[in-house]
């Protein structure tokens, strides 16, 4: 054929053009959108928490909340360095090492401080995770996809707050199997775990379990909504955060 080269190029460019539109055309065919968000779910740009340490400051009170959290998420009880913690408590010196002045108000110094994952705006754990098992959700929660965790523990090295625990042994050995929450999975040996800001509760419109049970001592809300309960407290009360100089921008604030 005389025009063979011309026709070939025309056909080729036509084919290239269809390649560009075909995926869109195919994606829209049928109009079946299989997944959606529960209409009851609550949303935010960045979930944040304010813990009022004038109200919540004893180890017993914090341990009671921790027990609720740990029962809800099937967190095993291990009494050693291999401890698994989602919500725990510690001293002022360990909580705010950068803000430790000599001759600090005694009462403040002797309080117990509730600790959990800070769900940082600029999380170092997310940067180091080689499998993206730890990732930042659009609502700011630093979430873990346990299915992808390979147990390398880079995130534990990267977290400045010690918010992550490694399952050195089979967690089910240290759980009361008759009292498991059947709605939530456990973890297995060899994965890291941490507080999840109760994503599974937010997804059905409930508040995190510790905030709900705290009788007002823990406030939860959207950091970027000026009308949110969190912003209201931040406007009115003096708050500090843990290790601000590290630059991870923690989203858990403490009223002192």
């Amino acid at each position, binding site marked *: 054929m005389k025009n063979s080269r011309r026709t070939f190029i025309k056909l080729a460019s036509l084919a290239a053009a269809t390649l560009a539109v075909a995926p869109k055309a195919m994606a829209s065919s049928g109009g079946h959108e299989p997944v959606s968000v*529960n209409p009851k779910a609550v949303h935010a740009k960045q979930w944040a928490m304010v813990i009022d340490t004038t109200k919540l400051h004893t180890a017993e009170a914090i341990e009671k909340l921790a027990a609720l959290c740990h029962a809800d998420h099937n967190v095993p009880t291990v009494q050693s360095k291999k401890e698994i913690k989602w919500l725990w408590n510690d001293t002022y010196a360990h909580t705010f090492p950068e803000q430790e002045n000599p001759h600090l108000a005694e009462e403040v110094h002797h309080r117990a401080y509730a600790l959990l994952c800070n769900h940082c705006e600029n999380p170092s754990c997310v940067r180091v995770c080689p499998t993206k098992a730890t990732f930042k959700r659009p*609502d700011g929660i630093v979430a873990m996809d346990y299915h992808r965790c390979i147990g390398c523990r880079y995130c534990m090295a990267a977290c400045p707050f010690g918010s992550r625990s490694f399952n050195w042994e089979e967690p089910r050995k240290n759980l009361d199997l008759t009292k498991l929450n*059947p*709605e939530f999975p*456990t973890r297995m040996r060899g994965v890291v775990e941490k507080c999840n800001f109760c994503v599974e509760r937010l997804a059905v419109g409930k508040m995190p379990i510790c905030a709900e049970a705290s009788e007002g001592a823990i406030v939860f809300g959207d950091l970027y909504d000026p009308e949110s309960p969190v912003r209201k407290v931040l406007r009115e009360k003096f708050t500090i955060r843990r290790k601000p100089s590290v630059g991870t921008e923690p989203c858990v604030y403490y009223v002192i």
Partner: protein
Amino acid sequence: MKMHYGFPIIAGLLIFVVAITAPFAVGKAVTKQYKQPEPKKVVGEKECIESVEFMRTEHMQLLNEWRDWALRDGKRIYTNHAGKQFTISLQNTCMKCHTNKAEFCDKCHNDAGVSPYCWDCHVQPEGLK
């Protein structure tokens, strides 16, 4: 032409042929007929998430998509091809209908020689011991 070592060669060949065809000859008598596994029927419900044929062959794919949708995209409601909605959850949806893992999932999996590691973390409806 004379064949060197004719007897051992022929005998060896014969033994080889008998050995290699033995499974076909005696196999039927020795091995059992393969039977399709019979997973436990669901009581009270007629339909699965999708058609039975689809579930039979694609449930592992569906579960894989389910966990990404729920955990990574934060979308926890699945609408099937008939327009019916389900909460995306292995423990709280699949296993609420298929209330016996041993008599359902395991029935097929044992035959197929797969042992999904899901149950290292997910709690089976029978509970743990």
